[in-house]
């Protein structure tokens, strides 16, 4: 919004952003399109898109005059009509939001999400040659705003889509995509089709966006592969050559901005997919079985679980806090092999008593490592044994975020005793038995 003074003047002249205007001020005469005021910056400055395409900011001062030249022309939105092609496989495309379907928001100066995925499809005509796309514009939620409620909705939408299609692609914001992929891996029990999550690190309004290739590779994967798992399919490297499919319970966003931000941790990619659509399988995976298996939706979720990091000087009373708030479980991201401070000089820093107390009060405490790579171990050191004896469950080579999602899932669908038992048992590829030598950076 512009300043009150400007808004008043605009109203008087019946001018709206998008109209062609002329501004006459001490600085000169400026003809162009009035742009909406970016939320940042000085709101007494008018932003005008000049005929040469550049935006210019000119202060609206006393004596300035603004005239309307022409009202904005209303564009007819681009639509596409999709014809069903018999020779192509059918896949579902569930749109949930994120950079992959975003455009510029002139109000905030940032990127905003498209609510019409058709627009995105119009930008990626290649998809038409890969599969018949069954579009579901489910929601438009930024990755950072996702909660378990959205996970549940997406899981249901996937189940619906799989009734009619051989595979599903889900577009999603990248920041928390690996939480959602883990949640879906657990919720879609008995999955017998490829469910491919994808997103982009560069918004699709720019020619260099990774959205196009990510979407194309994902569509290939959903329409051709026999992977019966939830995977994340994004750039394998900084180049637009291959995407990799990473197991949904072993993927993690490891870079704030690069295209190849997603990496498998304690795992290898399942496949690499070329831009042209060839798929090369690179490790074992659960295969689609010809006999139709029943997909069971386990969408219960216990939101009262927390992910807590242990670090030098950290206050163990955080556990008491969660306990007092009625939390049912905590995943601790410990150091190294799964340590928290336990034998500190100053007993106030020791987590041991707090963990013991929490477990005795009925909480489930799981231990993972902030190393991310490698497996936790309850035996190697005395301090580890102490924590383990206090009742904490060591979660093998499970990622902290995955353990966190899993704990909520378990508590939402099973009795506590069962949940406790299943936490460090592999359900959906989140725990491996062997740590292979080439799984590290």
């Amino acid at each position, binding site marked *: 919004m512009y300043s009150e003074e400007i808004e008043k003047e605009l109203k008087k002249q019946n001018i709206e952003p998008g109209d062609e205007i002329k501004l006459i001020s001490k600085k000169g005469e400026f003809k162009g399109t009035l742009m909406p005021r970016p939320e940042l910056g000085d709101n007494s400055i008018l932003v005008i898109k000049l005929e040469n*395409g*550049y935006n210019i900011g000119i202060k609206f001062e006393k004596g300035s005059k603004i005239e309307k030249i022409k009202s904005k022309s209303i564009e007819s939105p681009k639509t596409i009509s999709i014809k069903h092609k018999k020779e192509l496989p059918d896949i579902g495309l569930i749109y949930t939001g994120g950079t992959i379907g975003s455009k510029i928001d002139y109000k905030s*100066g940032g990127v905003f999400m498209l609510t019409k995925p058709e627009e995105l499809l119009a930008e990626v005509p290649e998809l038409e040659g890969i599969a018949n796309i069954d579009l579901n514009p489910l929601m438009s939620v930024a990755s950072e705003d996702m909660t378990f409620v959205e996970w549940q909705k997406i899981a249901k939408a996937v189940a619906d889509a799989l009734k009619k299609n051989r595979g599903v692609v889900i577009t999603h914001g990248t920041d928390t995509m690996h939480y959602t992929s883990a949640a879906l891996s657990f919720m879609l029990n008995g999955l017998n089709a490829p469910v491919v999550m994808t997103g982009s690190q560069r918004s699709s309004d720019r*020619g*260099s966006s990774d959205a196009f290739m990510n979407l194309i590779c994902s569509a290939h994967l959903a329409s051709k592969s026999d992977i019966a798992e939830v995977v994340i399919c994004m750039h394998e490297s900084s180049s*637009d050559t291959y995407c990799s499919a990473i197991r949904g319970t072993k993927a993690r966003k490891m870079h704030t901005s690069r295209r190849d931000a997603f990496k498998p941790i304690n795992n290898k990619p399942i496949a690499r997919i070329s831009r042209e659509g060839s798929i090369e399988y690179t490790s074992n995976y659960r295969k689609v079985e010809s006999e139709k298996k029943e997909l069971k939706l386990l969408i219960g979720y216990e939101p009262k679980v927390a992910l807590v990091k242990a670090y030098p000087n950290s206050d163990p009373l955080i556990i008491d806090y969660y306990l007092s708030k009625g939390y049912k479980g905590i995943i601790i991201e410990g150091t190294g092999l799964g340590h928290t401070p336990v034998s500190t000089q100053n007993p106030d820093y020791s987590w041991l008593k707090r963990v013991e107390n929490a477990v005795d009060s009925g909480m489930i405490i799981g231990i993972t490592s902030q190393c991310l790579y490698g497996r936790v171990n309850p035996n190697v050191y005395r301090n580890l044994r102490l924590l383990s004896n206090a009742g904490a469950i060591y979660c093998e080579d499970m990622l902290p975020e995955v353990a966190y999602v899993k704990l909520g899932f378990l508590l939402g669908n099973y009795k506590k005793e069962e949940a406790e038992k299943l936490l460090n048992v592999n359900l959906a590829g989140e725990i491996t038995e062997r740590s292979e030598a080439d799984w590290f950076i």
Partner: protein
Amino acid sequence: MKHEKEYYEKLGFKCGLEIHQRLLTTEKLFCSCNAINEGKKTGMKVERMQRAVVGETGELDKATGFESMKGRRFIYNVYDISSCLVELDEEPPHKINEEALNISYLIAATFNCNIPDEIEVMRKEVVDGSDPSAFQRTMLIGYGGSLDINGRKINIPSIFLEEESSGIEESNNEKVVYNINRLGIPLVEIDTDPEIKDPSEAKEVAMRIGLLIRLTGKVQRGIGTIRQDVNISIKDGARVEIKGFQDLDSMDEVIENEVERQLKLIEISKELRERHAEVGKAIDATSIFLNTESRIIKNAIKDNGVVFAVKLSGFKGLIGKEINPDRRLGSEISDYVKAVGIGGIIHSDEDLKGYGISEKEIRELSIKLGLEANDGFMLIAGEKEKVEKAMPLAIYRAEYAIKGVPKETRSIDAKKNITKFMRPLPGSSRMYPETDERPILADHELYEKLKKEAPNIDELEKRLNKEIGNRQIVEQLIRSQKLHDYLYISEKIKGEHQLIASILLQKMKELKREGFDVDSIGNDTLICIFKKYMDKKITKQAFEPILKALPKDCKEVERIIEEKGLQRISGSELEKILKEEISKYGNDKGKIIAGVMSRYRFNIDGEEMNKEIDILTK
């Protein structure tokens, strides 16, 4: 110049310039990479595809659409100190480089511009791959400026601060390899209004703008650091942007040839319209050429290639009409199809037998196309996929020949000083806001201060007139690339200004023409030679042999003086020599001088000698 001013006035000649100059900053515009040192390749290469996306206004720009249609892969060489994730479009831009911003203010002040209250960083879409992000960051820094030249005011409507693009290492139809080390170096673009009246004025304005920005002392020097683009149109013609002048000497000739080209195209279009010319649809004529003797077609169709033909009704004789030295309408059409990797077109105004195309093939083609007396045709042969892409381009260009001159961005053929098609002229729909940067509040206080520091030609001219005392030399100096050397040297020498100017402008030029690489002599070495002269260690005549020996530093200057015996002879030593000559020739001054100079040409100062002779022969 071929023609007078009036000639261009009658043609409705309009011309404006865009001057691009790299700024001298330690860091790049939107990251902390080294902007001065080129750095080394790390060996890492990144491959990308780019596509045109619909811009802010919802329109797909013609130029960007054209580039993306080529479907080429772009490969970027990564550098150590001069590239990071920002250049690779893998990290958002950092905060704008204040140093660059301030230099751009100074340049805006030099051209008497106003600056906006708020600077809005924009993205200008570029799909030729020269930027991994597929856009260039650019912003309007100054507007409403002007330049006085020869009593005329040339308006400078806008000055932009923007990012330099990547340099091309290798380019073919499948891929382009770019070096990203120079990408993102700050650059200013200075535009003039299209009010330049003739080709020689264009050259003069370009030189003046170049001079003024260099006078700020805050810009990079050397090859590639300044580039000039020229926009030209004539009445009934079209606006054409000629990109990338590096050599100002040929600017006027290139412009003259472009005007000639447009005039010829206008003539052709008039004739075509009188003939009610039409361009037909493409048909597959491969079957006619299955057993052809034409090597060019045989090669093109050997791997399942095709030959497509189009009837050009009423075009006969005009496709082959010369529009520039060795260039025809046919060459213009060929340039369009080259963009998609086809070598060119074959057309009916060419010597088809020279291509090995037989009478029979021509006859069959005529029947197939239904050609009549005034009709022509064009053929495109090659891989089916490429030909299918090329044909619509060729048809578009041929149809435009009926309408007139297409709006285009054109490159320079430096050998022939003519222009060639690069891509359609971009419109304004390829700009949208850079949302990763906040708008910048302009610093008006700083700007007012910089206005006082901005270089001023009038004052410089006054100063030079006073120093040198020769209007003609001053005028020459101001137009010359040597001005900077003059300013540098005269600041250290304090005196003998006219000598400095004439050595730089005349002597050095003369020696260069004779083949001596005198430009390799550094300014500090020149200063050393001038100092020797002022200290009366050498004479004016000694400059030439010293310069010819191309000294690298002061030590070498001393060695050359020693070895060649160039020390100045004066005072009692001179007196002794003169007395000897006087004893031979008496009072015959001419003979005395000739005698002395035959032996001591480089060592004796003429003025001193004259005075001494006068005293001695009194």
